């Protein structure tokens, strides 16, 4: 994303639309990447409610993939994931490996 100069910004740098932070992708902050293992997932949605970055996509009440554009890789989801029969449905892996 190209930074804007002062001529391109609205006067007073006023923000003109709500929820515009979605244009700012925070996924590049990530050092560890959460990986979803579907067969171990019980669809409890704890990962969704506890995600500080709203980076778990849920469609019709079922979780789907992570939104890696915004996930900062904190790992709360992996820690809170109850999994199935002791097998976690979310594991963390180092980025770039």
């Amino acid at each position, binding site marked *: 994303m190209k930074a804007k100069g002062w001529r391109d910004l609205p006067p007073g740098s006023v923000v003109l639309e709500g929820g515009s932070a979605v244009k700012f992708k925070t996924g590049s902050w990530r050092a560890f990447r959460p990986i979803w293992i579907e067969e171990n997932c019980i669809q409890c*949605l704890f990962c969704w409610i*506890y995600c500080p970055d709203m980076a778990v996509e849920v469609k019709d009440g079922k979780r789907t993939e992570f939104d890696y554009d915004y996930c900062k890789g904190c790992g709360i989801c992996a820690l809170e994931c109850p999994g199935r029969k002791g097998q976690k449905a979310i594991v963390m892996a180092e980025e770039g490996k």
Partner: protein
Amino acid sequence: MATPLTLKELSKKEDRFTHGHRMCSGCGAPIVVKIAMMATEYPVVVSNATGCLEVSSCISEFTAWNVPWIHTAFENAAATLSGVETMYRSLKKQGRFDKDKEVKFIAFGGDGGTYDIGFQSLSGAMERGHDMIYICYDNGAYMNTGIQRSSATPLGADTTTCPAGSVIPGKLRARKNLTKIMAAHDIPYVAQASPSHWLDLAKKIQKAHEIKGPKFINVIAPCNRGWRSKTNDAIQLSRLAVNTCYWPLYEIENGVTRITVTPKEKISVAEFMKPQGRFKHLFSPENEGLLQRVQDEVDREWAKLQKEAKTD
């Protein structure tokens, strides 16, 4: 009007607090905010005291808020919002705003902006009886400016302005009990909540919206930078805070105290403190007494709360 509080139903709603905000990885505050914002269907106006949440959710050009939102200075989130609430009432009286449309008002502040700097404006707004909820996300220090002590910093914690070392063993004073201070304002609803118990938190927000008058909710919000813990333990630490009774979950409705979550087994407060680097020095032999003092204080507060509470 009330949203059914199941994760499946809640997940179908549009985010009122969106991704792309720039809070640190693993921060507890956005979890508190997202749960608070999704717990109601009402149109909401938010005012936000200066603090981590404010500076990182609205960085030039971008805002993570999908609702009308006002950035205020450190000290006047409650005063600003009480003005907004009054304006809506006046516009309704003048016939310039739909009389039957219910608009709700929420102020967010960190512990610095609530316990310390914003305290007089909060106290004033509560005394004047404005119809609003004030939510404090309490991370126990001025984290945004680099971990300076606040009056919410717990006893014995290491911060940059009360550094633990050979002179002092971290903060020498206990934290002030703001939830009880707000209850002393005799307002209709005061509660304490934790993001780990999301349903309890959402229920409290929902209940507060249905009550007319000033409401105050104090929510613990772990900060892995300031607490010197890992990025993944915000929920685990807030759960430990509840289970050790360091942060009991209760509400005071019209003067009646009710404990909403009683831990199955009350564990030692050391379990909550051990994963946090800010308390590391308390586990060395010379600070044993201080650790015991922390435990005694937690026990005393918990006993007091149980005595006050109505058992159901």
